């Protein structure tokens, strides 16, 4: 029971982190139709920038400045790269972001080298806030939860209570109409792209110290972010939130409970082969849940796309 | 009884959310008839077309083609039963050549289905048929150009060519002359008359000149209901129609 609570908290941390990435991505995707493959790369840039800044000005300045730089970089990419490719259609756009992801990883390696960076949480948060049955909950985790919640609430506020938010919301559902109404859609695009990447940057700043700051961090997270927004349904911020939490909890719980395939197979009446090492099915018999935990989201996505192509909360086709 | 009607609509309804766009349409179109559907903007003409051709599922009612219920059939299945349509917005294959456009539209009708053992270029039959259609729609000179670079009228002609190429006996044209000059319109009307010889034609059209010139019978659709059906002169004389629609339109024309 205690472990469940601990897992809920851990899953919440993962889920909210994922949400900070998927929120930006779903906004970008549904407004511009661009599957931004480089989104996780901006997350990585956030972590690296923050690390570099933290060397001179400390963690908090990093948290403040790095996302801004990432956002500006994102807006620049939209303005000088994506906008140019936009005229050729969606596939080249997508391939552009794909190439951009490769290039950013190379540039990061060029500047910072290939090793993991010793980027760690600020001293002030390096203590155990409380423990549940011997499981320490570091203060930094609670800080991460607060940060992401704060961002979600402010995002919600901006989207529902401000003029800009209204335009964006309208553009999510009726992109062409909004343009026809005379709004400067390119500027909105650039803004959304910048804000979306800045959000990814924030995620990078706060995740870098716990999940590691290394050149492979974008690749590790990259495709799972897509999976999240596809499961949640495009253009739906709530969908992104629900899917992020869902994936956070699924992966956490899957890793926590050693459900063995052998038990399931025996429960439904199969007989375990006597000599497992010779059986052609030995890999199936020895399968456990933690082994496949991280790929469960992909399975979920394929199933959802086959049976409900617009995701959990989406209104349009993906 | 049903054998007589090429296309029969029975109490066809369609709602989008709470709004009912088509409110119970009954219509029977005989074989070989040229039938026009007219009506003011927003009357639901295009929706009606889309319901018939399976683009949208109807909320209620039935569509019968040669007596067969079309419920639940996909567009390609309806097409194979002998119904072909054009679109209001030009809907061709812009990156392929004009000749290719026509040839593609012939493939199914010529029985090639999903074959991957025939070379299309080796079939003399196919090439000749496609060239014949190009001749008919007057685009032989444009044969090798990508369809996307044709003029608007030429694209509309190509659209009609594609629509009737498959040899369907029921042809539906959605505003074939929309956005055309007078001379272009004349060209298209001649074309339509020529290619729909002995076929059933259903069309939506705004240009009254075209409608009265081509149609054997006319239905007037107002707010999702057919207020009148009959021969052109009957419809013209119908006071209900004049009140709802025709009067204003005729005034505008003269």
């Amino acid at each position, binding site marked *: 029971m205690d472990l469940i609570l601990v897992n809920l908290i851990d899953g919440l941390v993962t889920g909210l982190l994922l949400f900070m990435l998927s929120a930006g991505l779903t906004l970008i995707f549904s407004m511009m139709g661009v599957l931004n493959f480089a989104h996780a790369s901006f997350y990585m840039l956030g972590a690296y920038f923050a690390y570099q800044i933290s060397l001179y000005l400390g963690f908090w300045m990093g948290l403040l400045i790095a996302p801004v730089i990432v956002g500006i970089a994102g807006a620049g990419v939209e303005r000088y790269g994506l906008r140019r490719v936009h005229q050729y259609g969606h596939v080249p756009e997508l391939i552009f972001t794909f190439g951009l992801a490769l290039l950013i990883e190379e540039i990061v390696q060029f500047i910072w080298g290939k090793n993991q960076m010793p980027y760690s949480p600020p001293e002030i948060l390096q203590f155990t806030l409380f423990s549940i049955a011997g499981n320490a909950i570091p203060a930094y985790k609670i800080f991460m939860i607060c940060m992401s919640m704060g961002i979600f609430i402010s995002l919600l506020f901006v989207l529902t209570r401000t003029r800009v938010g209204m335009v964006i919301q309208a553009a999510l559902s009726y992109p062409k109409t909004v343009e026809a109404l005379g709004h400067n859609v390119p500027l909105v695009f650039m803004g959304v792209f910048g804000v979306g990447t800045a959000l990814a940057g924030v995620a990078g700043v706060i995740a870098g110290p716990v999940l590691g700051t290394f050149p492979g961090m974008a690749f590790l997270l990259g495709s799972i972010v897509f999976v999240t927004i596809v499961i949640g349904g495009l253009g739906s911020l709530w969908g992104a939130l629900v899917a992020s939490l869902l994936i956070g909890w699924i992966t956490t719980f899957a890793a926590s409970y050693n459900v063995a395939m052998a038990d399931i197979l025996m429960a439904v009446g199969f007989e375990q082969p006597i000599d497992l090492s010779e059986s052609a099915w030995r890999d199936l018999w020895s399968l456990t849940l933690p082994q496949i935990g991280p790929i469960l989201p992909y399975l979920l996505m394929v199933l959802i796309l086959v049976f409900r192509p617009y995701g959990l909360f989406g209104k349009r086709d993906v | 009884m049903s054998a007589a009607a090429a296309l029969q609509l029975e109490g066809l309804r369609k709602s989008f959310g709470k709004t009912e766009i088509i409110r119970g349409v009954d219509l029977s179109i005989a074989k070989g008839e040229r039938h026009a559907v007219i009506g003011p903007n927003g009357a639901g003409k295009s929706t009606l077309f889309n319901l018939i051709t399976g683009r949208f599922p109807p909320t209620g009612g039935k569509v019968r083609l040669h007596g067969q219920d079309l419920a639940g059939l996909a*567009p390609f299945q309806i097409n194979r039963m002998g119904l072909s349509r054009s679109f209001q917005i030009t809907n061709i294959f812009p990156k392929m050549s004009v000749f290719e456009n026509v040839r593609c539209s012939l493939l199914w009708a010529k029985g090639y289905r999903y074959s991957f053992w025939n070379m299309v270029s080796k079939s003399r039959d196919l090439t000749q048929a496609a060239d014949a259609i190009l001749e008919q729609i007057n685009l032989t000179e444009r044969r090798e150009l990508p369809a996307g670079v044709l003029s608007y009228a030429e694209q509309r002609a190509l659209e009609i060519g594609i629509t009737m190429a498959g040899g369907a006996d029921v042809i539906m044209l959605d505003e074939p002359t929309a956005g055309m000059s007078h001379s272009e319109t004349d060209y298209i009307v001649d074309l339509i008359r020529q290619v729909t010889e002995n076929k059933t034609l259903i069309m939506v059209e705004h240009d009254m000149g075209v409608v009265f010139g081509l149609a054997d019978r006319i239905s007037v659709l107002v707010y999702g209901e057919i207020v009148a059906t009959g021969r052109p002169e009957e419809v013209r004389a119908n006071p209900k129609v004049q009140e709802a629609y025709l009067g204003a339109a005729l005034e505008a024309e003269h």
Partner: protein
Amino acid sequence: MTQALHKSTHAPQGGITLASAMPWIISTVVLLVIPFVFTSNSAITIMNQMAITIIFALAYNMLLGQGGMLSFGHAVYMGVGGFMCVHVMNYVEDYSLPLPLPLLPVFGGLFGLGLATIVGSFSTRKAGTVFAMISLGVGELIAACSVIIVVFFGGEEGVSGDRTYGLPFFGVEFLHQIEVYYLIVFWLILSALLMYLFSRTPVGRMANAVRDNPERAEFLGYSARWVRFFSFCASGFFCGVAGGLFAINYEILTEENLNLVQSGSILLITFLGGVGFFFGPIIGAIVFTLLSTVLSLQTELWQLYVGALFLATVMYFPGGLAGVIMMHWPAFRLGNARMLVLPYIKTFIPCLIGILGTAALIEMIFHLRHGAVGDEEMTLFWTTFNVHAVLPWLIAIAITGAAFWLTRRNIPEVVDAWHRANSLPGAAT
């Protein structure tokens, strides 16, 4: 068949004319002769790799270019075909079955086809993002299985076989790279020809139609889904053939044949070459294989350059390298290609120098940052110099700057020449 052949010579469109057969004949001759020109084993190894990549890229382009379907997990069809081939290889060896090696790729093809049939049955219902994301998910799932299902995929070390298992095939034992080369070339020509012909069949033509306008295609009697499905299966078959050839050439298949990196790079290769033309992926495969095997020997930063090249291609030449080549076709036809030569030389040589200069500067910065202490010497373009001295930097910057300045200055001339070359003789002023 023969009858059709005879008839078609008169048909205005079709048939095998000398002009249409010429590229095939020339390619075949070149492929046959080239090992006599470049005899080293490594050149042949690289060419083998290229040929396999070409088949894979062409098969991928059946989806991306011809059918408009973007797949993010296409490596699995090649990979699974290859894995099956290694298993067949081992099985045939264990039971001494009379299966000659050259026929092995057929099995790869059939298993690729089988997998594509299963996956295609649900993934091709929609095109666009749904298809792309399903392909990503399936690709990731199968790649993940490769380390879990050890019986079939062999875990991390993969599965390996021995291609010299059987009796000699007409005296050839496939001991040497050169014999494998000719085997691969045979399959390359055969598959490329079949894929080309596929694009000329009704289903191949309709694949183009569905790509351009699925709705219209539906109203022509074709189910867009089935057309996509058939393209997908055909692509799976040829991917499997490529996998079979991979199994023969390397005699080992591992997890890397299935993973997303492989799937991503085939997308890059195809796009780099150009999706709009049949021969585009061929160019892409050749260039990319060269970059990854030869450039990577020259510099650690090769992926940086490949990334930059790729991005530049997407931004400035969305038609890929094939698009760039075909851009010049009208000028050739007008007989004006000569007009372009001089302006091109005047512009692109400085441009090339500028790019090389930039690369040199990048290499110098890299050496300065990451080189060993005391190791101040570096060699670039056959020149050895001290990176810590100022002079080399000044020279590099000056050359690069001057080259780009020259390029900029000459661009209007190229544009002008381009317009003249592409206008009819009479219209030229």
